[in-house]
């Protein structure tokens, strides 16, 4: 399989010897939307910065379009657009002038400036200085800069930060369109699970500098489906757990619930009866949710 971005055993340590990444290997297939998901401080931005060559002295290899970034940086960057952390816009200049700066460097047609401005909804900003833009507008301008030269690979670090819900939907739909119509590969990081759930075709889960999962969104859900649980909340969870154990069911005692492996609805009702017969009040019986959020929380707390 051809990978647009491939990292192998990437490790990075800050100058204070704090290890941020530990053997991070990610594989971004061509023309996919790869959601790079992880909580704050998991190592997402560091990984993306390493991929873009913004950080040096790492271990492991990085390949973009099958070429190592070291030695091919300039060539690779001609086909890469990026937005890392907060948008890089020149506050004393208008949106158009900001784009002109990069248009010169990328040597793309001048007409492209108006195109990306209208794509990102900034066509009417006129001579307004970027410093007067809202955070959402700056974010859009950052995306416009990233898109200016028709990149084959778009690397976006938390691009919906600062956008209102409507803006988030717009950007999401826009990225989907970009991927569908132009075949642009998108590597997008986020801590917003819903965003990734709705957008990504492939997912990489990272926590504490380690990759916990990589594959398609369907694979992740399928894998985790095998691990569905029933949760009981009772007046005495200790006693309830002891009763379950006597039925050869292995319960896991959580702070205010008991977790057991998924079973048939008849069994669930039978266990409920058992608890009631033994004088325990049953407050709640629920099936553990199996959406991406739950899977994610389970993975990072395991």
């Amino acid at each position, binding site marked *: 399989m051809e990978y647009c971005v491939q990292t192998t055993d990437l490790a990075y340590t800050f*100058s204070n010897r704090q290890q941020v990444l530990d053997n991070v290997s990610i594989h971004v297939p061509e023309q996919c939307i790869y959601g790079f998901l992880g909580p704050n401080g998991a190592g997402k931005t560091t990984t993306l*910065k390493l991929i*873009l*060559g*913004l*950080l*040096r*002295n790492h271990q492991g290899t990085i390949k973009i379009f099958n070429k190592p970034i070291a030695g091919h940086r*300039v*060539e690779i*960057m*001609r086909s*890469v657009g*990026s937005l*890392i*952390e*907060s948008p*890089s*816009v*020149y*506050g*004393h*200049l208008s949106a158009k*002038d900001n784009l*002109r*700066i*990069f248009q*010169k*460097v*990328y*040597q793309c047609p001048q007409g492209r400036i108006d195109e990306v401005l209208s794509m990102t909804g900034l066509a009417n900003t006129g001579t307004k*200085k970027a410093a007067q833009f809202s955070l959402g507008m700056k974010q859009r301008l950052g995306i416009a*800069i990233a898109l200016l030269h028709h990149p084959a690979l778009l690397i976006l670090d938390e691009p919906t930060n600062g956008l209102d819900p409507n803006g988030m939907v717009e950007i999401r739909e826009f990225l989907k369109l970009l991927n569908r119509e132009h075949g642009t590969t998108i590597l997008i990081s986020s801590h917003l699970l819903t965003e990734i759930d709705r957008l990504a075709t492939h997912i990489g889960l990272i926590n504490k500098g380690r990759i916990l999962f990589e594959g398609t969104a369907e694979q992740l859900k399928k894998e985790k489906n095998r691990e569905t649980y029933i949760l009981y909340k009772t007046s005495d969870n200790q006693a309830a757990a002891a009763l379950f154990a006597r039925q050869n069911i292995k319960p896991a005692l959580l702070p205010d619930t008991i977790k057991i492996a998924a079973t048939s609805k008849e069994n669930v009702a039978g266990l409920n009866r058992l608890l009631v017969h033994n004088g325990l009040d049953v407050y709640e019986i629920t099936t553990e949710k199996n959406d991406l959020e739950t899977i994610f929380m389970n993975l990072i707390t395991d």
Partner: protein
Amino acid sequence: MRIFFYSVQSEWLKTKNSIASWLCLVGGFFIPLLYLIADIKNKTFINSAGTEIWQTHFTRLWMNMSGFLLPMGLILASSLITQVEFKNNSWKQVHVTPQKYSTIFFAKLAVLLGMTLKFFLFFNIGVIIAGTVPCLIFDHSFPKENIPWLYFIEKNARYFIACLPIIALQYLLSLQFKNFVIAVGVGLAGLIGTFIAFRWQYIYLSPFSYTNPFAERSGFSENILLYATIYFVVFTIISFYLYVNKKIKG
């Protein structure tokens, strides 16, 4: 070369409406404007300067400019050129463009030198305006002597080369330190220190000494251009090495 040209264009665009650009304009016209006001107030004219009136007029304005305002302006402008990237958090965007680090480095330096030339241009325009406007206002005769362009060019070139060590040193510092105050502070300390110790026999070792109006009359006047050029080359090489080998580029 074409890529470098586009890179310089891109860097030049960043100076539009910037503080460095305003500093260049205001700084260039400041001394000529003061002289113009003084001459209008005192009803003095360039023709009263005796022989070689343009040379005398030019020198008296340069003497006031080059002592403190010129190096101060250079310190500020050099630091502001890179500060634009720190302030806007845009180094990371610059470093993911398809440009070699050497192209980025020298394009910024070229813009800095271009800004200095622009400042010189504004100053020279100011010199001519300050010389001619009082004659227009008081219906005095225009100077009979032609403007000695060659003299102007030669003096400007000399001062420009004298500025190079300050530009290169401040560029080096401002590329290394995100905090604008460090680069400006070091520059100011160097400038004031040079002023205080100007009579010291080894003051020519200070890169801030060559723009000093008394440098031409000092013992090292013959070698000013040589020292300035050496410093510029050395500072630029160090600066380039440190910039290219920076571990974090955004």
